[in-house]
């Protein structure tokens, strides 16, 4: 079972990176990377690192790649799509949305209806991780927050410049 999950996820991961190399459309590249990083998140979960898996999906596949997509949209690389492709895309989106809704429903039902005691305890490993972060690696953690602030200010200073100033 674990091997099946491993092979599926690594196939998805490597396949989408290869597709990124072969594709010429930047927006498609970013979406391929979202798929790749999401499956990497699954692999992290397979390595008993649930917190890293969640951060991978939320921060990498979510925040960073959305930032890439915003940047791509700023470059105004717009191509008008034929109507047939648009319809197919709508159908695909509707299908994906239904799957996501069903998934959330299944997960939520388990949480609400299932006996509270049956829920697995949130990984003890995560508690150990938090302990490490706020004791041994406290300085590194605080410096990281400074780094993020510096990146924020730097990005504003760089990209916020007016034309010709």
């Amino acid at each position: 079972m674990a091997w099946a999950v491993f092979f599926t996820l690594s196939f998805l991961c490597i396949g989408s990176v290869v597709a990124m190399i072969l594709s010429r459309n930047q927006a498609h590249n970013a979406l391929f990377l979202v798929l790749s990083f999401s499956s990497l998140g699954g692999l992290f979960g397979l390595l008993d690192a649930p917190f890293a898996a969640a951060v991978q999906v939320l921060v990498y596949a979510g925040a960073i790649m959305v930032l890439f997509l915003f940047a791509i949209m700023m470059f105004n690389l717009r191509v008008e799509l034929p109507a047939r492709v648009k319809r197919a895309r709508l159908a695909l989106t509707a299908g994906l949305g239904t799957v996501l809704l069903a998934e959330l429903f299944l997960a939520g039902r388990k949480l609400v209806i299932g006996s509270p005691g049956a829920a697995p305890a949130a990984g003890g490993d995560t508690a150990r991780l938090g302990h490490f972060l706020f004791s041994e690696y406290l300085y590194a953690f605080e410096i990281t927050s400074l780094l993020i602030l510096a990146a924020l200010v730097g990005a504003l200073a760089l990209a916020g410049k007016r034309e010709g100033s």
Partner: protein
Amino acid sequence: MIPAAAFFILAAVLFVLGILAFFVKKDLLTQFMAVEVMLNAGNLAFLALAKSLGKAEGQVIVLFVITVAAAEAVIGLAIIVLVFRQRKTIQTDELKDLKG
């Protein structure tokens, strides 16, 4: 139970694919994405080591790598947007002012 070696092989393949993408692709944005792929391969290796050695430090490093990658993405994308504003292109073939 999957041996750590399988994850190491996957991480190595991902890293090499990232390097390949970095040199094959000709636009700054996709090259930047290739860097992200390499960072992720490193993360995977860290987590595989953390599991096989039974230490949580590997996961701490992964969190730091992800944070640094976020900061790096913000600055890098700002620079790419700036380059695009000044040159109207992000194709590296057309950005050749620095050739000695």
